[in-house]
């Protein structure tokens, strides 16, 4: 005890050490991103062209909203697998409600202007149901969201007849397609939401409550934090973000496939963990999660530019996730539990 005592007294003098280390952990993936950029340049100089970089950013903007959503939930010490289905179902329901019956499935009950509000409301409702089951009824979050994942995917397949919705109203396509100030709107939306989330999780009571709940829910409750309310709110917010991400992808592709978002949750978890968000809650930052998904998409882009055949991309994606995990383990020096 005495030894540790003196050891603890030391950093009290040199106050810089601890926070610097913490900052460094946030930036753990930045060197890896730089290395990939350099490697990418040597593989194909096109990699560092402005257009290609914008392309990478746009490709990852939709799924990065899923990563943001999952990171918020993981920081609370929970998980939500159903986000990938929400990602497809929310815009899918909107498309189904506004499209006239005809070539594609659709009921045409609402006008096209309703598509965005409907998408977001569906997202919020899914999050609310998740919260009802997990927070209110105390069901196991993993299994609840696994069940939701399957149910929501099935609903989308059901309403679409397994086909793709297209001929979407212009309002639904706008966000994923528009260009604001020279950059695609989806990049702006992604960056602004990440900046907001970084500020909220770092500098507001609500944001810090997420860390407190994930770190030790009993202690958080004892400190007067309304644990259940914050958790429920986070689940709703996360599903809302997933719905928005789905909307962006719908806009970019001008369609909603029955499989939109299918399998994305694995990439989402990998990105969050690579970015330093702990699956046990209470640890990690939103910025780290962003660097995680950015790194994954940069590597994929480099592989594509290197002319790797499409059939091999799946195997390589898995390998990339494992390698990125190893890299982040080495650079951060922290065990990933």
């Amino acid at each position, binding site marked *: *005890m005495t030894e540790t005592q003196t050891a603890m*007294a030391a950093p009290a003098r040199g106050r810089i050490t601890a926070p610097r280390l913490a900052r460094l952990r946030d930036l753990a993936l930045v060197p890896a991103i730089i290395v990939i950029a350099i490697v990418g340049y040597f593989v194909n100089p096109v990699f560092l062209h402005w257009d290609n970089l914008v392309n990478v950013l746009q490709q990852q903007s939709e799924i990065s909203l899923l990563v943001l959503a999952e990171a918020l939930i993981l920081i609370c010490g929970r998980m939500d697998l159903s986000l990938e289905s929400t990602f497809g179902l929310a815009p899918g329901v909107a498309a189904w409600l506004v499209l006239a019956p005809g070539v594609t499935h659709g009921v045409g009950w609402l006008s096209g202007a309703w598509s965005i509000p409907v998408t977001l409301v569906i997202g919020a409702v899914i999050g609310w149901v998740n919260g009802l089951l997990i927070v209110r009824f105390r069901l196991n979050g993993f299994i609840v969201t696994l069940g939701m994942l399957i149910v929501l995917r099935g609903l989308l397949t059901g309403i679409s007849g397994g086909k793709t919705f297209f001929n979407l109203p212009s309002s639904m396509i706008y966000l994923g397609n528009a260009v604001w100030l020279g950059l695609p709107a989806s990049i702006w939306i992604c960056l602004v939401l990440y900046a907001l989330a970084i500020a909220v999780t770092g500098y507001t009571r609500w944001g810090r*409550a997420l860390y407190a709940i994930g770190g030790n829910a009993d*202690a958080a409750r004892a400190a007067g*934090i309304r644990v259940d309310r914050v958790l429920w709110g986070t689940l709703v917010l996360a599903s809302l973000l997933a719905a928005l991400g789905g909307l962006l992808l719908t806009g970019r592709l001008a369609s909603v496939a029955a499989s939109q978002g299918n399998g994305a949750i694995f990439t989402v978890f990998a990105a969050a963990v690579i970015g330093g968000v702990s699956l046990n809650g209470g640890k990690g930052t939103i910025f780290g999660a962003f660097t995680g998904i950015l790194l994954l998409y940069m590597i994929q882009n480099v592989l594509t530019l290197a002319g790797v055949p499409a059939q091999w991309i799946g195997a390589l994606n898995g390998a990339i996730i494992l390698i990125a995990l190893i890299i982040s383990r080495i650079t951060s020096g922290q065990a990933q539990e």
Partner: protein
Amino acid sequence: MSHSASAAAGVRPVAAAHRISKRFGVTVALDDVSLAVDDGDIHALVGRNGAGKSTLVSILTGLVPPDSGTVEFGGEPAPPLADREAWRQRVACVYQKLTVIPSLSVAENLFLNRQGRGLISWGSLRRRARELLDAWEVDVDVRAPAERLTVEQRQLVEIARALSHGSRFIILDEPTAQLDGQAIERLFARMRSLRESGVTFLFISHHLDEVYEVCDTVTVMRDARHIVTSPVAELGKEALVTAMTGEATGLIALGAARSAPAGGAAPVLTVTGLGVPGVFEDVSLTVAPGEIVGLAGAGGSGKMAVGESIVGLRRAARGTVEIGGTTPRPGSVPAALRAGLGFVPQDRHREGLVPGLSIAENTTLTVPERLGRFGFVGPRRRDELGAKAIGDLDIKAAGPDQPVSALSGGNQQKVVMARALAGDPKVLVLMQPTAGVDVKAKETLLGTASAAATGGAGVLVISDDLDDLRPCDRVIVLFKGAVVAEMPTGWADHELIAAMEGIRD
């Protein structure tokens, strides 16, 4: 003890519970219990495991509503349970379990959920934290994450946090259970100085010596009932033990019944030149069959590291460990177990038990080969062994299939001991075997160790608790990683403590 005198002069109690009763299902946790804690007192609350102390604390801190009875603070009725802030202004409890958030900084923990309105200014938050800790003379880096604090530092931070809420009544739930001797002294010094500045304590402890050292008043509980409240000075130690156990028993007097082992037998445990750089160096010792050897030392002496190296939880850089004539592969627990070792790890919560599994399963975790052949587990055989452990060690349980998480601390520790003994070990290594258990459970645990020695096992007791060391035939003292003394049985308390603290005469 002037404070108890002033209390007698009619000072209003800072906290009072009137005729509290509480049931959990069929279990009566509190039966018509009253307690009044006077302003400026250090009030001890003692009782065996399961006496109802924890429930009383939960009610006094507003975490659990009583079935009947009332709680008052300074003569006013307690606030409604939902008003956590009001409760925090009146009473705070420093629990044994963690009530800080490990990944967050000390500063943030201190001001959790009251970081101020709008955006948090981390600079000013840290400054406020620094001022708060300086005011109460707590020397901790406010930027360090709480998980890096020692138990002692964490307690001080929690006390400071309680005081910053405005509470001047603090409940300490077994604060000394995980502290070493010096840290306990520092905690007592701080309690006394806080008492001078008007803070009242309710102090829960298993160690009766501590009650006499630091407390003004003592309340004894037994079997969910209030037994006696008295100024400490007026209640003798024998009377206190009798009040706690409900029977007139002396303090632990084990070892006396056991005759010293016959000399000449080859040692069952031989440790030669064991060393881990920076932790301990060149430790050699032998344990003969039937002998009980103590390894004592203060926190930081490296005694636990020695024990962990012997049982294989840690790999020593130098030296050898010989168990029953064989040398198991260093750093391998299975190899040590095969060689005939049984051990009780230091922290039963972390290394000792799988809480969700039953008593029988926990007891037999180390001896699967006894349960059946070819890796199959025979449930009947397992339950037999579990039932035997329950009988041998007097474990208070419904049966061998009860999960250990449902047991009290003392009974959990008995399960750990039963497991150490399950393989009929030649060598038994016990690390802090009686940490956080009551007097009665302590007697059983140490009695079991003595019985194992009588049965021919060599026992090594690693502890800084003098009661654990009393049954030992000799005690080896470690200080800052080196063996500094060896004392035959019959040592005086002050001699041993002086050696453990590195004081030479």
